[in-house]
């Protein structure tokens, strides 16, 4: 079972956790990516997320399907937000549930790592000094 979406409104973590509920679930792994105030030493005031929406939606769906195909009984709900986000707001929420903890935790990690490789989404940091810069992970040392 999987649900995936690119959304513009704040992501409701509890609603995503509700989606994967099932009597057979013994372990739920959740990953939340949030906007933080400091990146490579610069003060950040917010972040724009932009997507190539139809392709981002289909890549996200494909990744969730792959995660489920690799782990029988896995239940997955993933949403990625686009638009302008403030510090502390969630850009992505991944919920993976399974009878056992290993597959649940492995799936959540697989989905975030693969999402960062394959889903056409970009982010532009707003710095407190007014500058706005598109993030290029191929030039960065660290990433959230």
């Amino acid at each position, binding site marked *: 079972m999987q649900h995936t979406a690119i959304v513009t409104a704040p992501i409701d973590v509890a609603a995503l956790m509700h989606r994967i509920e099932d009597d057979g679930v013994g372990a739920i792994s959740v990953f939340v990516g949030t906007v933080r105030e400091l990146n490579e030493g610069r003060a950040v005031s917010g972040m724009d997320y932009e997507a*190539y929406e139809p392709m981002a939606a*289909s890549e996200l769906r494909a990744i969730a399907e792959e995660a489920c195909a690799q782990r029988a009984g896995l239940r997955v709900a993933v949403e990625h937000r686009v638009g302008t986000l403030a510090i502390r707001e969630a850009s992505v929420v991944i919920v993976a549930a399974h009878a056992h903890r290993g597959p649940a935790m492995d799936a959540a990690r697989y989905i*975030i790592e693969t999402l*960062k490789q*394959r889903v*056409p*989404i*970009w*982010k532009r940091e707003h710095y407190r000094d007014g500058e706005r810069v598109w*993030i290029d992970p191929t030039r960065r040392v660290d990433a959230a």
Partner: protein
Amino acid sequence: MSVPVLLFASYADAFGARRIDVPVCMPCTLNEVVQAMRTLPGGSVLPTVPLVAVNRAWVTVHTAINVGDEIAVIPPVAGG
């Protein structure tokens, strides 16, 4: 003739548009589209081998394109 190319984020900023018409001779591959884009204002933003998608699926620059394909030249992705 020319083919429409979708642009996003830093590439849209560099070319000054979210969609541009790129002059190429058909039939051709994506590589010829990318080479033609380098000659346009903003073309220096493109890396040696940019990410490309046709009809919303990742492909390589060696892929042949057809009239009516949805072509996107894509900056390094940074989701999450």
